[in-house]
């Protein structure tokens, strides 16, 4: 069941109505039932067994570690063994079923075997690992009701593309909720905004980007269009999905963590990764980078590097190594060799270069008397960050590293050999890329709306809170306008099935 389908909306409406009618102590149980129904309608039902295994492993080890049996020396060792086993089991299940792209080329005969991963496996696996580690690090108390823990693993809105929630963030999942008009309206508005991003904008940009990528010989100016618009497709697709997910949870009174915070306003690539896919980034930082840099081996290595390279470069060497491991883990999670080589190494190198050059650049901007608070400087920095991001995700879009390199080569060579032909932007050539003139207009309007919402969010927090402060006719104009835009301009329905989200594959 796609979360952009009518069936999903019907399920949310019916489920939401029942949720506030039922006794409040039953609400979490209803969410679990809804999650099971959603799972059976969206994936092979038998694959739910993987979620059950993952939950059972987490439940057993964390409850043991919290019991009196774990207070003795032997008990502590058993608890650590059980915890490590549960984490390894989660990783192994994910690697075999979801990371098949990494090992399958080594065992081509196994390609015919029916490996079917569970829905949302990349997301719930990370959630369960964080739950186990948080319990062992005593940041949280283990959940003693296995069904409530199962709900944490399979809460239906986040089964498609996350967010990767922490157990400590989802306390509202088990709370008793009274009906709230604000939750309902804000949730519905957020879902609607997500529909606009996904069905109206992302799908249109997708047609354009696909058209450019599918042609062999290509005009450099078209390559630039695909290159510059793909980040917008990624953002509107993924963050649009997040809006639907977070809005749906909000209808049920559950607050999910945010995954995006105006990433294209970032001044540096480091800041960008703090604003893009936030829950994955913080997960990798807390459960990969920090434990690694804090480990005895890395501390020893860092001390040795400091002695040989001096304080600054020694520290830089240790951090770089830690960041390399983190980016490799992110590459593996995205499941492809081209992602590891193209995307991960690119961003890691740029991040480290930025870190290395930061003091020099600071001196340079001071020498040139650049006003770092000025709008134009911020705009320049954001544009630079956007371009760095756009280069990396060429390899996300390409099916191989070679294809990604060829795309970038054609783009650069075409530009600097005088073949750019900018006149093609104005002589109706753009209409060859699958979108008519009206579609181009709609695309432009949506991008402007996105920018406006982003500015409002940067200034006032949520844009919808700004809308909520306006007079009634204006509010109706905004939300009815968006609803009509989705209904009239959205790409949906039975004949149109290309509504899978890019990040759904993880």
């Amino acid at each position, binding site marked *: 069941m796609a979360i952009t389908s009518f069936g999903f909306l019907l399920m949310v409406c019916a489920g939401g109505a029942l949720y506030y009618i039922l006794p409040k102590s039953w609400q979490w149980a209803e969410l679990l039932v809804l999650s099971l129904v959603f799972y059976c309608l969206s994936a092979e039902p038998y694959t739910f067994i993987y979620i059950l295994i993952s939950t059972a492993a987490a439940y057993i080890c964390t409850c043991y570690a919290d019991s009196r049996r774990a207070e003795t020396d032997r008990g502590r060792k058993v608890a650590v063994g059980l915890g490590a086993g549960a984490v390894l089991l989660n990783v192994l299940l994910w690697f075999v079923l979801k990371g098949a792209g990494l090992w399958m080329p080594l065992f081509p005969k196994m390609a015919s075997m029916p490996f079917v991963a569970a829905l949302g496996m990349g997301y719930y696996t990370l959630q369960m690992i964080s739950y186990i580690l948080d319990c062992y690090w005593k940041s949280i108390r283990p959940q003693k009701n296995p069904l409530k823990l199962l709900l944490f693993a399979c809460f239906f809105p986040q089964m498609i593309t996350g967010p990767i929630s922490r157990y400590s963030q989802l306390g509202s999942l088990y709370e008793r909720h009274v009906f709230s008009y604000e939750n309902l309206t804000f949730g519905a508005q957020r879902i609607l905004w997500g529909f606009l991003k996904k069905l109206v904008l992302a799908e249109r940009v997708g047609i354009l980007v696909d058209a450019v990528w599918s042609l062999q010989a290509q005009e450099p100016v078209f390559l630039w269009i695909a290159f510059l618009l793909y980040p917008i497709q990624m953002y509107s697709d993924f963050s649009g999905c997040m809006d639907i997910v977070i809005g749906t949870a909000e209808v049920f009174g559950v607050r999910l963590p945010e995954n995006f915070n105006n990433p294209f306003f970032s001044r540096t690539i480091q800041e960008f990764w703090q604003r893009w896919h936030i829950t994955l980034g913080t997960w990798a930082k807390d459960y990969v980078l920090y434990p690694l*840099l804090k480990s005895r081996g890395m501390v020893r290595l860092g001390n040795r590097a400091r002695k040989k390279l001096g304080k600054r470069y020694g520290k830089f060497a240790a951090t770089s190594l830690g960041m390399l491991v983190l980016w490799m883990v992110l590459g593996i999670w995205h499941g492809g060799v081209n992602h590891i080589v193209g995307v991960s190494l690119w961003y890691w190198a740029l991040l480290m270069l930025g*870190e290395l050059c930061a003091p020099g650049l600071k001196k340079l901007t001071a020498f040139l008397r650049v006003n770092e608070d000025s709008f134009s400087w911020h705009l320049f920095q954001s544009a630079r960050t956007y371009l760095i991001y756009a280069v990396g995700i060429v390899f996300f879009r390409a099916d191989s590293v070679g294809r990604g390199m060829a795309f970038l080569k054609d783009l650069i060579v075409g530009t600097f050999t005088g073949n750019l032909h900018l006149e093609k932007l104005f002589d109706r050539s753009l209409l060859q890329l699958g979108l008519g003139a009206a579609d181009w207009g709609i695309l432009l309007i949506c991008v402007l709306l996105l920018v406006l919402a982003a500015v409002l969010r940067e200034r006032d927090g949520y844009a919808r809170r700004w809308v909520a402060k306006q007079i009634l006719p204006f509010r109706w104009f905004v939300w009815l306008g968006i609803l009509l835009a989705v209904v009239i301009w959205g790409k949906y329905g039975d004949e149109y099935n290309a509504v899978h989200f890019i990040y759904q594959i993880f």
Partner: protein
Amino acid sequence: MTREEVYERLTGVFRDVFDDDSIEISDETTADDIEDWDSFEHINLVVAVEDEFSFKIPMGKVVTMKNVGEMVDIILDLGR
């Protein structure tokens, strides 16, 4: 170890990690108050604190501590 003693040693650690001899810290000091205190430097700071006080800060505390005051509480707790 008294709170004052912890503060004296901790100030030295902060000044060394952030290469800034003018840093003064208090219970309310957070990452927002020190320019270079980002996620990289946070873990470097934790490792330097562990080195200075010769004990390991549990991972759960590393990611949840919100200000210097909490860091001092953890140090006093572990040093007991």
